[in-house]
Protein backbone atom coordinates (compact mmCIF):
# COMPACT_ATOMS: atom_id res chain seq x y z
CA UNK A 1 0.00 0.00 0.00
CA UNK A 2 2.79 2.37 0.99
CA UNK A 3 4.67 1.25 -2.06
CA UNK A 4 1.68 2.15 -4.23
CA UNK A 5 1.53 5.52 -2.58
CA UNK A 6 5.18 6.07 -3.35
CA UNK A 7 4.50 5.31 -6.97
CA UNK A 8 1.64 7.73 -6.96
CA UNK A 9 3.85 10.41 -5.48
CA UNK A 10 6.48 9.70 -8.09
CA UNK A 11 3.87 10.09 -10.80
CA UNK A 12 3.05 13.52 -9.47
CA UNK A 13 6.73 14.30 -9.11
CA UNK A 14 7.28 13.36 -12.74
CA UNK A 15 4.55 15.68 -13.86
CA UNK A 16 6.09 18.38 -11.70
CA UNK A 17 9.48 17.96 -13.36
CA UNK A 18 8.10 18.26 -16.87
CA UNK A 19 5.86 21.14 -15.90
CA UNK A 20 8.77 22.97 -14.32
CA UNK A 21 10.84 22.51 -17.47
CA UNK A 22 7.94 23.72 -19.55
CA UNK A 23 7.29 26.80 -17.47
CA UNK A 24 10.93 27.81 -17.07
CA UNK A 25 11.77 27.26 -20.72
CA UNK A 26 8.63 29.03 -21.84
CA UNK A 27 9.60 31.97 -19.68
CA UNK A 28 12.94 32.34 -21.42
CA UNK A 29 11.42 31.69 -24.83
CA UNK A 30 8.88 34.43 -24.23
CA UNK A 31 11.52 36.87 -23.01
CA UNK A 32 13.71 36.12 -26.05
CA UNK A 33 10.77 36.45 -28.39
CA UNK A 34 10.07 39.87 -26.92
CA UNK A 35 13.64 40.84 -27.67
CA UNK A 36 14.94 40.68 -24.13
CA UNK A 37 18.38 39.14 -23.93
CA UNK A 38 18.84 36.51 -21.24
CA UNK A 39 21.96 34.69 -20.24
CA UNK A 40 20.17 31.37 -20.29
CA UNK A 41 18.34 30.23 -23.40
CA UNK A 42 15.10 28.31 -23.46
CA UNK A 43 16.64 25.47 -25.45
CA UNK A 44 20.05 23.91 -25.83
CA UNK A 45 19.49 23.24 -29.54
CA UNK A 46 22.11 24.38 -32.04
CA UNK A 47 20.49 25.44 -35.32
CA UNK A 48 22.93 23.40 -37.35
CA UNK A 49 23.47 24.73 -40.85
CA UNK A 50 23.36 28.33 -39.67
CA UNK A 51 25.07 27.85 -36.34
CA UNK A 52 27.92 25.43 -36.02
CA UNK A 53 29.26 23.77 -32.96
CA UNK A 54 32.89 24.30 -32.31
CA UNK A 55 34.71 21.07 -33.11
CA UNK A 56 36.93 19.72 -30.37
CA UNK A 57 40.65 20.02 -30.90
CA UNK A 58 41.04 16.26 -30.92
CA UNK A 59 38.08 15.57 -33.16
CA UNK A 60 38.92 13.17 -35.99
CA UNK A 61 37.92 14.94 -39.16
CA UNK A 62 39.02 14.76 -42.79
CA UNK A 63 42.55 13.44 -43.30
CA UNK A 64 45.39 15.51 -44.61
CA UNK A 65 48.89 14.67 -45.70
CA UNK A 66 51.66 16.82 -44.33
CA UNK A 67 54.51 18.19 -46.38
CA UNK A 68 58.17 18.45 -45.63
CA UNK A 69 59.90 21.80 -45.66
CA UNK A 70 60.67 21.45 -49.35
CA UNK A 71 57.06 20.80 -50.23
CA UNK A 72 57.22 17.08 -50.89
CA UNK A 73 54.86 14.84 -48.95
CA UNK A 74 56.26 13.53 -45.72
CA UNK A 75 54.87 10.11 -46.48
CA UNK A 76 57.54 7.47 -47.09
CA UNK A 77 55.07 4.78 -48.19
CA UNK A 78 55.59 2.39 -45.33
CA UNK A 79 51.93 1.44 -45.82
CA UNK A 80 51.39 1.02 -42.10
CA UNK A 81 48.23 3.07 -42.44
CA UNK A 82 46.96 0.81 -45.18
CA UNK A 83 47.90 -2.16 -43.04
CA UNK A 84 46.19 -1.01 -39.91
CA UNK A 85 43.09 0.37 -41.64
CA UNK A 86 40.17 -1.76 -40.48
CA UNK A 87 37.98 -0.75 -43.41
CA UNK A 88 40.72 -1.20 -46.01
CA UNK A 89 40.14 2.21 -47.47
CA UNK A 90 43.72 3.38 -47.98
CA UNK A 91 45.54 2.55 -51.16
CA UNK A 92 49.13 3.67 -51.74
CA UNK A 93 51.52 3.09 -54.56
CA UNK A 94 55.20 3.76 -54.08
CA UNK A 95 57.67 5.18 -56.56
CA UNK A 96 61.41 5.50 -56.25
CA UNK A 97 62.92 8.93 -55.96
CA UNK A 98 66.45 8.67 -57.40
CA UNK A 99 67.53 11.97 -55.87
CA UNK A 100 66.47 11.26 -52.33
CA UNK A 101 69.06 9.08 -50.65
CA UNK A 102 67.47 9.27 -47.25
CA UNK A 103 63.99 7.94 -47.84
CA UNK A 104 64.28 6.84 -51.44
CA UNK A 105 60.59 6.36 -52.01
CA UNK A 106 57.59 8.66 -52.23
CA UNK A 107 53.90 8.07 -52.78
CA UNK A 108 53.00 8.05 -56.46
CA UNK A 109 49.39 7.40 -55.55
CA UNK A 110 47.75 7.91 -52.20
CA UNK A 111 44.03 7.30 -52.18
CA UNK A 112 41.76 7.34 -49.18
CA UNK A 113 38.31 6.04 -49.97
CA UNK A 114 36.19 8.08 -47.60
CA UNK A 115 33.10 6.14 -48.52
CA UNK A 116 34.64 3.20 -46.69
CA UNK A 117 36.55 5.14 -44.03
CA UNK A 118 35.17 4.80 -40.51
CA UNK A 119 37.28 7.63 -39.07
CA UNK A 120 38.82 5.45 -36.39
CA UNK A 121 42.13 7.31 -36.64
CA UNK A 122 44.27 4.17 -36.57
CA UNK A 123 46.11 5.36 -39.68
CA UNK A 124 47.17 8.53 -37.90
CA UNK A 125 48.38 6.58 -34.90
CA UNK A 126 50.24 4.11 -37.10
CA UNK A 127 52.11 6.72 -39.11
CA UNK A 128 55.76 6.74 -38.05
CA UNK A 129 56.50 9.93 -39.97
CA UNK A 130 53.59 12.02 -38.69
CA UNK A 131 52.65 12.42 -42.33
CA UNK A 132 48.95 11.82 -41.90
CA UNK A 133 46.70 13.76 -39.60
CA UNK A 134 42.98 14.08 -39.12
CA UNK A 135 42.83 17.64 -37.90
CA UNK A 136 41.37 19.59 -40.80
CA UNK A 137 38.15 20.10 -38.83
CA UNK A 138 36.24 19.38 -42.01
CA UNK A 139 33.34 17.09 -41.26
CA UNK A 140 30.91 17.93 -44.03
CA UNK A 141 32.14 15.51 -46.66
CA UNK A 142 28.96 14.44 -48.42
CA UNK A 143 29.15 14.07 -52.19
CA UNK A 144 26.72 13.04 -54.86
CA UNK A 145 28.96 10.32 -56.26
CA UNK A 146 30.98 7.66 -54.53
CA UNK A 147 33.90 8.35 -56.83
CA UNK A 148 34.08 11.89 -55.51
CA UNK A 149 34.84 10.40 -52.13
CA UNK A 150 38.08 8.89 -53.37
CA UNK A 151 40.50 11.48 -52.05
CA UNK A 152 43.78 11.37 -53.93
CA UNK A 153 47.21 12.78 -53.17
CA UNK A 154 46.40 16.18 -54.58
CA UNK A 155 43.27 16.62 -52.49
CA UNK A 156 44.88 15.25 -49.34
CA UNK A 157 47.92 17.52 -49.59
CA UNK A 158 45.80 20.68 -49.58
Amino acid at each position, binding site marked *: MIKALEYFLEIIHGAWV*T*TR*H*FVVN*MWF*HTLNLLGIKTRRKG*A*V*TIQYPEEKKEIAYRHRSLHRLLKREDGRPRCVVCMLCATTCPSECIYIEAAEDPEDDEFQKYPAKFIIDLSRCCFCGFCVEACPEDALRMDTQKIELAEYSRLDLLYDLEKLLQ
Partner: protein
Amino acid sequence: MIETLIVLAKIILALAWFLTLTLYLTWLERKESAVIQDRIGANRASILGLRVIGLFQPFADAIKMIFKEDFTPPFSKKILHNLAPFTSFFFVAVTIAVIPFGDKIEIGGRLINLQIIDTHVGLLLILALLSLGIYGILLSGWSSNNRYTIIGGLRGAAQMISYEIALGLSLVGLILVYPSLRLSEIVAYQGQHFWGWLPKWGIFLQPLGFLLFLFAALAETKRVPFDLPEGESEIIGFFTEYSGLKWGMFMMTDFMEVVIISCLITTLFFGGWQVPWLWADGFHFPWGTVWVLPRAVVVILQLLAFNLKVFFFCWFQILVRWTYPRFRYDQLMNFGWKLLIPLCFVNIMGTAIILSL
Protein backbone atom coordinates in the same frame (compact mmCIF):
# COMPACT_ATOMS: atom_id res chain seq x y z
CA MET B 1 -35.87 26.47 -43.35
CA ILE B 2 -34.04 29.07 -41.34
CA GLU B 3 -33.71 26.53 -38.53
CA THR B 4 -31.93 24.16 -40.89
CA LEU B 5 -29.60 26.90 -42.05
CA ILE B 6 -28.77 27.79 -38.48
CA VAL B 7 -28.00 24.17 -37.65
CA LEU B 8 -25.87 23.92 -40.77
CA ALA B 9 -23.96 27.05 -39.82
CA LYS B 10 -23.46 25.68 -36.32
CA ILE B 11 -22.17 22.40 -37.70
CA ILE B 12 -19.73 24.17 -39.98
CA LEU B 13 -18.50 26.49 -37.27
CA ALA B 14 -18.14 23.71 -34.72
CA LEU B 15 -16.29 21.44 -37.13
CA ALA B 16 -14.02 24.28 -38.25
CA TRP B 17 -13.17 25.03 -34.64
CA PHE B 18 -12.66 21.36 -33.91
CA LEU B 19 -10.45 20.58 -36.90
CA THR B 20 -8.34 23.72 -36.58
CA LEU B 21 -7.73 22.96 -32.98
CA THR B 22 -6.81 19.38 -33.90
CA LEU B 23 -4.47 20.57 -36.63
CA TYR B 24 -2.65 22.89 -34.28
CA LEU B 25 -2.59 20.29 -31.61
CA THR B 26 -0.02 18.44 -33.75
CA TRP B 27 2.06 21.59 -33.74
CA LEU B 28 1.46 22.07 -30.04
CA GLU B 29 2.50 18.52 -29.34
CA ARG B 30 5.83 19.01 -31.10
CA LYS B 31 6.47 22.37 -29.55
CA GLU B 32 5.41 21.43 -26.06
CA SER B 33 7.46 18.28 -26.03
CA ALA B 34 10.41 20.32 -27.30
CA VAL B 35 10.04 22.91 -24.57
CA ILE B 36 9.72 20.22 -21.92
CA GLN B 37 12.91 18.62 -23.21
CA ASP B 38 14.90 21.87 -23.59
CA ARG B 39 14.65 21.77 -27.37
CA ILE B 40 13.22 24.12 -29.94
CA GLY B 41 10.95 21.85 -31.92
CA ALA B 42 9.71 22.07 -35.45
CA ASN B 43 10.56 25.52 -36.73
CA ARG B 44 11.70 25.02 -40.32
CA ALA B 45 8.44 25.02 -42.26
CA SER B 46 8.26 28.39 -43.94
CA ILE B 47 6.31 30.31 -46.52
CA LEU B 48 8.57 32.60 -48.55
CA GLY B 49 11.17 32.42 -45.84
CA LEU B 50 8.69 33.35 -43.15
CA ARG B 51 8.98 30.84 -40.35
CA VAL B 52 6.77 32.18 -37.53
CA ILE B 53 7.95 29.67 -34.89
CA GLY B 54 6.95 26.75 -37.06
CA LEU B 55 3.26 27.57 -37.31
CA PHE B 56 3.16 26.31 -40.89
CA GLN B 57 4.29 22.88 -39.84
CA PRO B 58 0.78 21.32 -39.81
CA PHE B 59 0.29 22.43 -43.42
CA ALA B 60 3.62 20.98 -44.44
CA ASP B 61 2.65 17.73 -42.73
CA ALA B 62 -0.71 17.71 -44.45
CA ILE B 63 0.80 18.32 -47.88
CA LYS B 64 3.32 15.57 -47.27
CA MET B 65 0.63 13.14 -46.21
CA ILE B 66 -1.54 13.94 -49.22
CA PHE B 67 1.28 13.33 -51.67
CA LYS B 68 2.55 10.15 -50.12
CA GLU B 69 1.78 6.87 -51.78
CA ASP B 70 -1.51 5.46 -50.57
CA PHE B 71 -0.57 1.85 -50.19
CA THR B 72 -3.03 -0.96 -49.69
CA PRO B 73 -1.38 -4.25 -48.86
CA PRO B 74 -2.08 -7.14 -51.25
CA PHE B 75 -4.77 -9.64 -50.18
CA SER B 76 -6.18 -7.15 -47.73
CA LYS B 77 -9.90 -6.45 -47.49
CA LYS B 78 -9.78 -3.37 -49.72
CA ILE B 79 -13.16 -1.89 -48.82
CA LEU B 80 -12.78 -2.41 -45.09
CA HIS B 81 -9.18 -1.26 -45.27
CA ASN B 82 -10.35 2.02 -46.76
CA LEU B 83 -13.37 2.25 -44.51
CA ALA B 84 -11.51 1.81 -41.20
CA PRO B 85 -9.85 5.24 -40.90
CA PHE B 86 -13.08 6.95 -41.88
CA THR B 87 -15.01 5.01 -39.25
CA SER B 88 -12.56 6.05 -36.58
CA PHE B 89 -12.60 9.63 -37.77
CA PHE B 90 -16.37 9.85 -38.11
CA PHE B 91 -17.37 8.62 -34.67
CA VAL B 92 -15.04 11.04 -32.97
CA ALA B 93 -15.96 13.95 -35.21
CA VAL B 94 -19.70 13.45 -34.57
CA THR B 95 -19.22 13.68 -30.82
CA ILE B 96 -18.67 17.42 -31.06
CA ALA B 97 -22.39 17.79 -31.84
CA VAL B 98 -23.48 17.57 -28.22
CA ILE B 99 -20.80 19.73 -26.64
CA PRO B 100 -22.21 23.07 -25.42
CA PHE B 101 -19.89 25.93 -26.39
CA GLY B 102 -21.78 28.61 -24.63
CA ASP B 103 -25.06 29.87 -23.23
CA LYS B 104 -28.08 30.55 -25.41
CA ILE B 105 -27.70 33.82 -27.29
CA GLU B 106 -30.33 36.01 -28.83
CA ILE B 107 -29.81 37.17 -32.41
CA GLY B 108 -32.66 38.95 -34.19
CA GLY B 109 -35.22 37.81 -31.67
CA ARG B 110 -34.23 34.20 -32.13
CA LEU B 111 -32.75 32.19 -29.29
CA ILE B 112 -29.78 30.28 -30.56
CA ASN B 113 -28.25 27.51 -28.51
CA LEU B 114 -24.46 27.37 -28.88
CA GLN B 115 -24.65 23.61 -29.19
CA ILE B 116 -25.48 21.68 -32.35
CA ILE B 117 -28.02 19.35 -30.80
CA ASP B 118 -29.20 19.63 -27.25
CA THR B 119 -30.46 16.10 -26.79
CA HIS B 120 -31.71 14.88 -23.42
CA VAL B 121 -29.41 11.82 -23.61
CA GLY B 122 -26.29 13.85 -24.41
CA LEU B 123 -24.05 12.12 -21.91
CA LEU B 124 -25.09 8.65 -23.02
CA LEU B 125 -24.72 9.63 -26.65
CA ILE B 126 -21.11 10.66 -26.07
CA LEU B 127 -20.32 7.40 -24.32
CA ALA B 128 -21.97 5.47 -27.12
CA LEU B 129 -20.09 7.30 -29.86
CA LEU B 130 -16.76 6.93 -28.09
CA SER B 131 -17.42 3.19 -27.82
CA LEU B 132 -18.04 2.92 -31.53
CA GLY B 133 -14.47 4.12 -32.13
CA ILE B 134 -13.38 0.52 -31.47
CA TYR B 135 -14.68 -0.49 -34.85
CA GLY B 136 -12.13 1.64 -36.65
CA ILE B 137 -9.34 -0.06 -34.75
CA LEU B 138 -10.64 -3.57 -35.20
CA LEU B 139 -11.42 -3.07 -38.87
CA SER B 140 -8.02 -1.61 -39.67
CA GLY B 141 -6.22 -4.32 -37.74
CA TRP B 142 -8.20 -7.10 -39.34
CA SER B 143 -8.33 -5.81 -42.90
CA SER B 144 -4.60 -5.17 -43.25
CA ASN B 145 -3.69 -8.80 -43.85
CA ASN B 146 -0.94 -8.63 -41.29
CA ARG B 147 -0.65 -10.65 -38.11
CA TYR B 148 0.92 -7.79 -36.21
CA THR B 149 -1.87 -5.39 -37.06
CA ILE B 150 -4.60 -7.79 -36.06
CA ILE B 151 -2.88 -8.46 -32.75
CA GLY B 152 -2.52 -4.71 -32.33
CA GLY B 153 -6.17 -4.24 -33.16
CA LEU B 154 -7.23 -6.88 -30.65
CA ARG B 155 -5.01 -5.30 -28.01
CA GLY B 156 -6.68 -2.00 -28.79
CA ALA B 157 -10.18 -3.45 -28.60
CA ALA B 158 -9.48 -5.16 -25.29
CA GLN B 159 -8.09 -1.98 -23.85
CA MET B 160 -10.92 0.18 -25.12
CA ILE B 161 -13.63 -2.16 -23.82
CA SER B 162 -11.98 -2.47 -20.42
CA TYR B 163 -11.66 1.24 -19.97
CA GLU B 164 -15.07 1.89 -21.49
CA ILE B 165 -16.55 0.34 -18.36
CA ALA B 166 -14.50 2.51 -16.05
CA LEU B 167 -15.34 5.54 -18.16
CA GLY B 168 -19.09 4.86 -17.93
CA LEU B 169 -19.05 3.96 -14.23
CA SER B 170 -16.99 7.00 -13.28
CA LEU B 171 -19.79 9.16 -14.67
CA VAL B 172 -22.56 7.36 -12.78
CA GLY B 173 -21.75 9.30 -9.65
CA LEU B 174 -22.04 12.47 -11.64
CA ILE B 175 -25.34 11.37 -13.10
CA LEU B 176 -26.61 10.78 -9.60
CA VAL B 177 -25.67 14.30 -8.63
CA TYR B 178 -26.72 16.21 -11.71
CA PRO B 179 -30.40 16.66 -12.43
CA SER B 180 -30.26 15.64 -16.09
CA LEU B 181 -28.27 13.89 -18.79
CA ARG B 182 -28.72 16.91 -21.00
CA LEU B 183 -25.32 18.53 -21.25
CA SER B 184 -26.63 22.07 -21.40
CA GLU B 185 -28.50 21.50 -18.16
CA ILE B 186 -25.43 19.94 -16.58
CA VAL B 187 -23.45 23.06 -17.44
CA ALA B 188 -26.21 25.34 -16.26
CA TYR B 189 -26.33 23.43 -12.96
CA GLN B 190 -22.65 24.08 -12.49
CA GLY B 191 -23.28 27.84 -12.62
CA GLN B 192 -24.56 27.66 -9.01
CA HIS B 193 -22.32 28.15 -6.02
CA PHE B 194 -21.84 26.50 -2.67
CA TRP B 195 -22.14 28.95 0.14
CA GLY B 196 -22.18 31.72 -2.39
CA TRP B 197 -18.54 31.52 -3.39
CA LEU B 198 -17.41 28.02 -4.42
CA PRO B 199 -18.70 27.16 -7.91
CA LYS B 200 -20.71 23.93 -7.98
CA TRP B 201 -18.40 22.31 -10.51
CA GLY B 202 -18.20 18.57 -11.00
CA ILE B 203 -14.65 18.44 -9.68
CA PHE B 204 -15.85 19.62 -6.28
CA LEU B 205 -18.90 17.37 -6.32
CA GLN B 206 -17.05 14.30 -7.55
CA PRO B 207 -13.28 14.61 -6.94
CA LEU B 208 -12.75 10.86 -7.05
CA GLY B 209 -15.05 10.56 -10.03
CA PHE B 210 -12.96 13.16 -11.82
CA LEU B 211 -9.72 11.28 -11.27
CA LEU B 212 -11.28 8.02 -12.43
CA PHE B 213 -12.75 9.69 -15.47
CA LEU B 214 -9.40 11.30 -16.26
CA PHE B 215 -7.53 7.98 -16.20
CA ALA B 216 -10.21 6.18 -18.16
CA ALA B 217 -10.39 8.99 -20.69
CA LEU B 218 -6.61 9.06 -21.14
CA ALA B 219 -6.78 5.35 -21.83
CA GLU B 220 -9.51 5.96 -24.38
CA THR B 221 -7.30 8.34 -26.37
CA LYS B 222 -4.73 5.53 -26.84
CA ARG B 223 -1.88 7.92 -26.18
CA VAL B 224 1.39 7.32 -24.50
CA PRO B 225 0.96 5.87 -21.06
CA PHE B 226 -1.79 3.78 -22.63
CA ASP B 227 -0.55 3.51 -26.22
CA LEU B 228 -0.41 -0.27 -26.39
CA PRO B 229 -2.68 -0.56 -29.42
CA GLU B 230 -0.18 1.29 -31.57
CA GLY B 231 3.20 1.77 -29.86
CA GLU B 232 4.65 3.13 -33.10
CA SER B 233 8.26 2.90 -32.08
CA GLU B 234 8.41 -0.76 -31.12
CA ILE B 235 5.38 -2.94 -30.58
CA ILE B 236 3.69 -2.44 -33.97
CA GLY B 237 0.03 -1.79 -33.89
CA PHE B 238 -3.17 -1.70 -35.84
CA PHE B 239 -2.36 0.99 -38.41
CA THR B 240 1.05 -0.32 -39.41
CA GLU B 241 -0.13 -1.02 -42.95
CA TYR B 242 -1.53 2.45 -43.50
CA SER B 243 0.23 5.25 -45.27
CA GLY B 244 -0.43 8.71 -46.59
CA LEU B 245 -3.74 10.35 -45.89
CA LYS B 246 -5.41 7.29 -44.40
CA TRP B 247 -2.64 7.06 -41.84
CA GLY B 248 -3.11 10.78 -41.33
CA MET B 249 -6.74 10.19 -40.47
CA PHE B 250 -5.81 7.81 -37.69
CA MET B 251 -3.37 10.38 -36.40
CA MET B 252 -6.02 13.09 -36.62
CA THR B 253 -8.46 10.84 -34.78
CA ASP B 254 -5.99 10.57 -31.92
CA PHE B 255 -5.75 14.32 -31.60
CA MET B 256 -9.49 14.77 -32.02
CA GLU B 257 -10.01 12.39 -29.15
CA VAL B 258 -7.71 14.57 -27.08
CA VAL B 259 -9.89 17.58 -27.88
CA ILE B 260 -13.11 15.68 -27.22
CA ILE B 261 -11.83 14.43 -23.88
CA SER B 262 -10.81 17.96 -22.98
CA CYS B 263 -14.27 19.20 -23.95
CA LEU B 264 -15.91 16.50 -21.83
CA ILE B 265 -13.74 17.15 -18.79
CA THR B 266 -14.47 20.83 -19.13
CA THR B 267 -18.20 20.29 -19.57
CA LEU B 268 -18.69 17.67 -16.90
CA PHE B 269 -16.21 18.67 -14.22
CA PHE B 270 -15.12 22.25 -14.80
CA GLY B 271 -18.37 24.03 -15.42
CA GLY B 272 -18.28 24.11 -19.21
CA TRP B 273 -18.55 27.68 -20.35
CA GLN B 274 -19.28 28.91 -16.82
CA VAL B 275 -17.05 31.55 -15.28
CA PRO B 276 -17.13 31.66 -11.49
CA TRP B 277 -19.44 34.40 -10.18
CA LEU B 278 -20.35 35.51 -13.70
CA TRP B 279 -24.12 35.70 -13.94
CA ALA B 280 -26.13 36.53 -17.00
CA ASP B 281 -25.88 40.24 -16.22
CA GLY B 282 -22.36 40.46 -14.94
CA PHE B 283 -20.10 39.49 -12.06
CA HIS B 284 -21.62 39.00 -8.64
CA PHE B 285 -18.61 38.69 -6.39
CA PRO B 286 -19.11 36.83 -3.11
CA TRP B 287 -18.17 39.90 -1.08
CA GLY B 288 -21.16 41.74 -2.48
CA THR B 289 -19.69 43.77 -5.30
CA VAL B 290 -21.69 43.61 -8.51
CA TRP B 291 -20.04 44.38 -11.81
CA VAL B 292 -22.68 44.79 -14.48
CA LEU B 293 -21.59 43.83 -17.98
CA PRO B 294 -23.38 44.01 -21.33
CA ARG B 295 -24.83 40.73 -22.58
CA ALA B 296 -22.38 40.46 -25.53
CA VAL B 297 -19.36 40.75 -23.23
CA VAL B 298 -20.73 38.06 -20.97
CA VAL B 299 -21.23 35.71 -23.92
CA ILE B 300 -17.73 36.36 -25.20
CA LEU B 301 -16.29 35.83 -21.73
CA GLN B 302 -18.14 32.53 -21.46
CA LEU B 303 -16.95 31.36 -24.88
CA LEU B 304 -13.43 32.36 -23.95
CA ALA B 305 -13.67 30.52 -20.65
CA PHE B 306 -14.76 27.35 -22.42
CA ASN B 307 -11.92 27.63 -24.93
CA LEU B 308 -9.32 28.31 -22.28
CA LYS B 309 -10.42 25.34 -20.21
CA VAL B 310 -10.31 23.10 -23.28
CA PHE B 311 -6.85 24.40 -24.23
CA PHE B 312 -5.61 23.79 -20.72
CA PHE B 313 -6.72 20.18 -20.75
CA CYS B 314 -5.24 19.67 -24.21
CA TRP B 315 -1.99 21.01 -22.85
CA PHE B 316 -2.33 18.83 -19.79
CA GLN B 317 -2.88 15.68 -21.86
CA ILE B 318 0.18 16.41 -23.97
CA LEU B 319 2.15 16.97 -20.79
CA VAL B 320 1.04 13.56 -19.56
CA ARG B 321 1.95 12.00 -22.88
CA TRP B 322 5.50 13.41 -22.70
CA THR B 323 6.02 12.60 -19.04
CA TYR B 324 5.15 8.97 -18.43
CA PRO B 325 6.44 5.76 -19.92
CA ARG B 326 4.11 3.14 -21.34
CA PHE B 327 2.33 0.58 -19.22
CA ARG B 328 3.02 -3.07 -19.60
CA TYR B 329 -0.03 -4.86 -20.92
CA ASP B 330 -0.75 -6.80 -17.72
CA GLN B 331 -0.29 -3.62 -15.70
CA LEU B 332 -2.73 -1.91 -17.99
CA MET B 333 -5.36 -4.58 -17.50
CA ASN B 334 -4.76 -4.80 -13.75
CA PHE B 335 -5.05 -1.06 -13.45
CA GLY B 336 -8.31 -0.99 -15.36
CA TRP B 337 -10.08 -3.98 -13.89
CA LYS B 338 -8.64 -4.23 -10.39
CA LEU B 339 -8.24 -0.58 -9.48
CA LEU B 340 -10.34 1.74 -11.61
CA ILE B 341 -13.55 -0.31 -11.71
CA PRO B 342 -13.67 -1.14 -7.95
CA LEU B 343 -12.96 2.51 -7.20
CA CYS B 344 -15.79 3.45 -9.52
CA PHE B 345 -18.14 1.28 -7.50
CA VAL B 346 -16.85 2.79 -4.28
CA ASN B 347 -17.49 6.21 -5.76
CA ILE B 348 -21.01 5.29 -6.82
CA MET B 349 -21.84 3.76 -3.44
CA GLY B 350 -20.35 6.71 -1.57
CA THR B 351 -22.23 9.20 -3.70
CA ALA B 352 -25.48 7.27 -3.34
CA ILE B 353 -25.10 7.02 0.44
CA ILE B 354 -24.32 10.72 0.79
CA LEU B 355 -27.22 11.66 -1.45
CA SER B 356 -29.66 9.45 0.43
CA LEU B 357 -28.75 10.99 3.78
